[in-house]
């Protein structure tokens, strides 16, 4: 994304405005840090710890998402970056400068609010021009930049409309234009697509990502929608109960969740309880409750005898009838439920009295069962690649 990001300029990019060039070839993590959070903590007056020692480094031009369930502290974190909340302890640094108690209007960041917060008594033009007027920019330059910003969000010709005359998607775009026209260092977005219906949401996800690549501004995006975060982000920080649990690219977060919470919150996972029986180099053998010993790849193997959870995603599991020749599976069980959803079939397989495993099997001809649905009650064997499972100690 980096190359196209800096070269596709519509006058709003940093390279065009501040003459910073030569960044095009750099990977996001090699670029300078735009926003750094150091042990950021927020305790509200009622004693609730909303944000608990969060440290993050967000690089220039990154699309960075804060992902977590409601109440996890992601919005409070964003509001501290914007300057609407003051940290109880810790520090927000923007472009390397500690923000301290710098008020929002002196920070080089702009926010797109969850409910857009457009000024209802102003036209689209006046809404977008607001920030520039506050900075006492000459009138003709304001006109030019507002035109560019509206062009960027494809809202030319809507200048004289009032927010109430626009659809939700259009209001969303005005909010984006109103923030981007100021050429902020960092754009903060607080669940900006939350109020849109699913179809529009999907469209706007791609459009936002495209927009971010076009303008090359750092985006910090707050969402509780894991699919949204996976679709758009360069990196994701998964938060829960005020803490950052894991930071990584969408692939890292999805494929190598570090905790049960992350494995469960992002996508779907089966959790199998067991005990470590053997520890090898980069690999452990876990005896699952119910008796099956399976070997799982593991970078930091826990000690022998540790109680662990093995996480396996439903789509990574191969399912075959138990009597089939290729059925040399890791786990055996019996089909308890079959749910056909067109592209895939979900199987619920009982492996012990206490444990069921969900399997998502793609309906194509390469399936082990030869394209036939397995009826309820079929004895099956399940198996997966060694690196498809994760050993979680938490």
């Amino acid at each position, binding site marked *: 994304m980096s190359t196209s990001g800096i070269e596709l300029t519509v006058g709003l990019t940093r390279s065009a405005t501040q003459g910073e060039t030569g960044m095009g070839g750099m990977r996001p993590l090699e670029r300078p840090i735009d926003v750094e959070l150091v042990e950021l903590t927020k305790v509200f007056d009622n004693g609730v710890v909303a944000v608990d020692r969060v440290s993050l480094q967000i690089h220039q031009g990154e699309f960075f998402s804060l992902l977590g369930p409601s109440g996890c502290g992601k919005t409070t974190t964003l509001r501290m970056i914007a*300057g609407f909340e003051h940290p109880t302890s810790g520090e927000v640094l923007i472009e390397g400068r500690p923000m301290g108690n710098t008020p*929002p209007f002196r920070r080089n960041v702009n*926010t797109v609010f969850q409910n857009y917060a457009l*000024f209802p*008594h102003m036209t689209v033009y006046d809404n977008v021009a*607001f920030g520039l007027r*506050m*900075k006492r920019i000459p009138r003709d330059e304001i006109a030019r930049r507002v035109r560019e910003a509206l062009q960027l969000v494809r809202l030319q010709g809507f200048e004289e409309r009032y927010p109430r005359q626009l659809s939700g998607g259009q209001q969303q775009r005005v909010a984006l234009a109103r*923030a981007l026209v100021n050429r902020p260092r960092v754009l903060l977005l607080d669940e900006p697509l939350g109020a849109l219906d699913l179809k529009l949401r999907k469209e706007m996800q791609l459009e936002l990502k495209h927009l971010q690549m076009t303008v090359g501004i750092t985006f910090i995006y707050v969402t509780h929608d894991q699919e949204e975060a996976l679709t758009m982000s360069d990196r994701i920080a998964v938060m829960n109960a005020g803490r950052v649990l894991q930071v990584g690219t969408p692939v890292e977060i999805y494929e190598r969740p570090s905790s049960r919470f992350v494995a469960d919150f992002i996508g779907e996972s089966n959790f199998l309880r067991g005990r470590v029986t053997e520890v090898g180099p980069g690999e452990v053998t876990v005896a699952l409750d119910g008796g099956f010993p399976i070997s799982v790849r593991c970078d930091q193997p826990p000690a022998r005898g540790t109680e662990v959870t093995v996480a396996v995603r439903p789509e990574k599991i191969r399912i075959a009838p138990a009597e089939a020749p290729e059925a040399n599976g890791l786990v055996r069980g019996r089909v308890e439920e079959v749910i056909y959803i067109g592209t895939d079939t979900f199987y619920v397989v009982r492996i012990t009295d206490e444990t069921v495993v969900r399997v998502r099997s793609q309906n194509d001809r390469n399936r082990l069962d030869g394209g036939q649905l397995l009826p309820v009650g079929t004895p099956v064997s399940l198996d997966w690649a060694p690196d498809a499972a994760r050993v979680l100690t938490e």
Partner: protein
Amino acid sequence: MVVAERVRPDQQILKWRERIVEVIRQREGLRALLLAGPGGLWLLLFFLLPIAIVFAYSFAHRGPYGTVAWAFTIENYTRFFDWLYIRVFLVSVWLALLSTIICLVIGYPFAYVIARAPRRWRNALLVLVLIPFWTNFLVRTYAIMLLLRADGLINNALLWLGVIERPLPMLFTPFAVVLGLVYGYLPFMILPIYASIEKFDFTLVEAAQDLGANTWHVFWRVLLPLTLPGVLAGSILVFIPSVGAFVTPDLLGGGKVVMIANLINQQFLTVRHWPFGSAVSFVLMAIVLAATMLYFRLGEGRRV
């Protein structure tokens, strides 16, 4: 033997009632008449009719011994353009305007504080605003007189402190009248402004700050324009009773500050020139109407 089905009286009444309800339900016009009729009749008898009579008086002559002589003239209106009466008119509008502005300047921040107070405090604060209404207006006005008198509480305190050497003349001045008007009508300014600030979406303040607006800009460009309906309503509610105030200028102005209502009172009761009093009443109504329309026009101009 055929037993006639006897209808018990109370059932009969129920049936009639059902029938009446049915008719009312079916006829929209009748329903509207029944709903609005009593109020309408009241207004017709005790508001429109007297106004019509007063309007008729305003074109009549003063008869001997203060009676009304029925002969058409517009002299009562032309007479108003005497400097003596124009002055009364100007003083009234000026004092009412001043009171409105002072109420606005005091009332807006007050309403803001109430609207932004924690929810559990809000009702208590609103009750505090309304507490003065529990006491009769006349009594409260006399209380102000006691405070402002030459040997009143304020003058005595200032003398004792040595701030002044002789009592300040405060009672029976325009100052006293404006003080009384502001005191009397401040709640009418606070309440509508409170209502509009309470409805205001404060994320807009954050949005404005985010876009580089300082506190001053947030107020002038976002908060004030969006709470203007409350400001306009409050201003009208203060200005109208102020411009037509009678008791306050009478007691606190002591005859030295004459406002329109005092002039009307004088013409009807002292001078016994009912036609001229009627004409002045209509001039007052015209002022109020003009002021109201001007305010609403102002509101539309801001496109709120």
